[in-house]
């Protein structure tokens, strides 16, 4: 079904500021489509972001939208969800926003199982500030602050969130648009903290510097290196080398925090311990 643009986008704010071929528009579209297909109430949906190219997405999306400070989207969103658990709260963030400055909030939200859907537009680079390395920049890649090649190891964001206790973790890419949409739909449906590592391309600052000259090259790189989760589990470490799994990687039920809080409120209203 064609995208119901006017319903979900602030068309008056378009065209957006993103560069030609930037993956962020593709992922944004997938989110909108997933929201549409999952039938959640747009009036009760809040989209929150930090700072970065990725974090500009909410400005184009026709919901209650909140563009916060760098790295802090998740705690802002936590306050919103706690204040009004009726709301569907979606967080849009970047690899720098979520995993560099915002890493702590990410793992704590995962631990708490607060009902947010966090989608990381992961382009392995700081786009907004012109191409410095991020904690997701692969070792050896070039960036404006890694002129001799990145010497640090990158995170595997899904492993990180899993290690923090996250009970819904998924990954997809800007290449796999339908898959990405479905994965986001699942994340929206999950009652608890859900995290989607959405690989996006930054042709301007990552691609050019790293011999992926066009957006298409970058999308094809995603195609070539992504492995469906089910196949992944059967691969040897050698086969896994350089590849990454996509799909819903963790999905186990666990009571969402505001629901637990509601029980606490019911208890204290009756006069519990304390």
């Amino acid at each position, binding site marked *: 079904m064609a995208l119901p643009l006017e319903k979900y986008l602030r068309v008056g*704010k378009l065209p957006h500021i993103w560069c030609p071929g930037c993956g962020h528009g593709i992922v944004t579209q997938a989110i909108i489509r997933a929201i549409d297909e999952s039938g959640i109430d*747009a*009036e*009760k949906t*809040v989209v*929150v972001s930090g*700072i970065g190219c990725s974090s500009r997405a*909410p*400005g184009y999306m*026709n*919901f*209650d*939208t*909140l*563009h*916060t*400070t760098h790295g*802090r989207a*998740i*705690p*802002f*969103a*936590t*306050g*919103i*969800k*706690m*204040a*009004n658990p*009726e*709301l569907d709260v979606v967080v849009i963030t970047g690899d720098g926003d979520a995993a560099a400055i915002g890493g*702590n*909030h990410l793992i*704590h939200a995962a631990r708490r199982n607060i009902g947010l859907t966090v989608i990381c537009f992961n382009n392995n680079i700081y786009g907004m500030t012109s191409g410095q390395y991020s904690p997701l920049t692969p070792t050896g890649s070039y960036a404006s602050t890694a002129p001799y090649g990145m010497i640090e190891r990158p995170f595997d964001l899904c492993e990180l969130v899993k290690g923090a206790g996250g009970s819904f973790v998924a990954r997809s890419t800007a290449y796999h648009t339908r898959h990405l949409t479905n994965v986001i739909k699942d994340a929206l449906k999950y009652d608890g903290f859900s995290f989607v590592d959405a690989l996006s391309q930054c042709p301007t600052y990552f691609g050019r510097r790293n011999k992926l000259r066009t957006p298409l090259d970058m999308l094809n790189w995603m195609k070539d290196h992504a492995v469906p989760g089910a196949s992944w589990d059967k691969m040897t470490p050698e086969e896994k080398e350089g590849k990454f799994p996509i799909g819903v990687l963790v999905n186990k039920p666990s009571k969402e925090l505001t629901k637990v*809080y509601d029980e*606490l*409120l019911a208890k*204290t*209203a009756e006069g519990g311990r*304390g």
Partner: protein
Amino acid sequence: MKEGKPRLLLGNEACVEGAIAAGLKFFAGYPITPSTEIAELCASYLPRVGGKFMQMEDEIASMAAICGASLAGRKSMTATSGPGFSLKQENIGFAVEAEIPCVVVDVQRVGPSTGMPTSAAQGDVMQARWGTHGDHEIVALAPSSVLEAYTLTVAAFNIAEELRTPVILLMDEMVGHLREKVVLPSKSELLVKDRAKPDLPPGQYKPYADYGDPAKVAPLAAFGDGYKYHVTGLTHGEDGFPTNNPELGARQIKRINDKITSRKKDLPQAEELFTDDAEVFVFSYGGTARSAKKAVRDARAKGLKAGLIRPVTIWPFIEEPLLKAKAKKPKAVIVPEMNLGQIILPVKRVMGDACPVVGVNKLGGRYIEPDEILDAIKEAIQSGSAS
């Protein structure tokens, strides 16, 4: 909570009760001495009134969470002390820029850095004003008593909601950790203000409307109310969307500042004692003002014409009482502070060359004793007479 009856309350506890009376429904914080009781009591009391307490992973997240909760329509508060207050600064700036009502309590202790965590100081006075980057005004109130820890917390919420701005309750360890007899105002005596809600339909609502009159502040819709509006920390226009237009940007920054300075007269005014015929003024706030009051009373008992100006609103700096004093050509203004001299700076600015402005400063966590202030009063009167 039993209204009207006398009670012995801790300053920090009075703050929590004030907050709840003012409508607090969401507290997010991170423990730190000497503010911790505020978090602990919120954890205990809030669920009983259908509110929520959340201990966040740090102070940055706490400040973020209360902003979020406020945008979702709940009155929100956080509490901290020096190190945490430093960490909150970036998001306090966000609340200023995005005009989010909320209350931030700073129970001051000795700094800089970790300093002396359990000892009293008034070292964050200038930080409260200037701690976050960029041009901004802030409202900060300083209670001197346990009762004021209550009433000014209520006032802080009212101002926050009316002006759509973060309000700092600038306590100090002396007040926060003092237990004192109080009779709290009853519900009917209490003025509680709630934020204005938009009366325009969603399409027409301007969350950052500029009415030309800075004292008029746009109403704030709650997320989920159907307004689908945008909030950002970028400089923005009336619709809330970012602008790069320098004129628009300048106007927005100015408006946010002016809404506070234009309302100075509506903020809690200074308490004055014996100022009518005073020759020497003591200008003192917070816990230290208790010593100052005693010193002024003692001075009067000795026939010395001392007067007290106790600013309750610390920021924006309200000049009137000092200007009135200046007009009386006083012998001196004495400014006792548990710091190296902070509020004395604007006092000097206002007093100009009219008279000496003398600091009585003490560090290391010890209270300033009434006699130390009294000595300064005596000296001022003597040297003032000599000259």
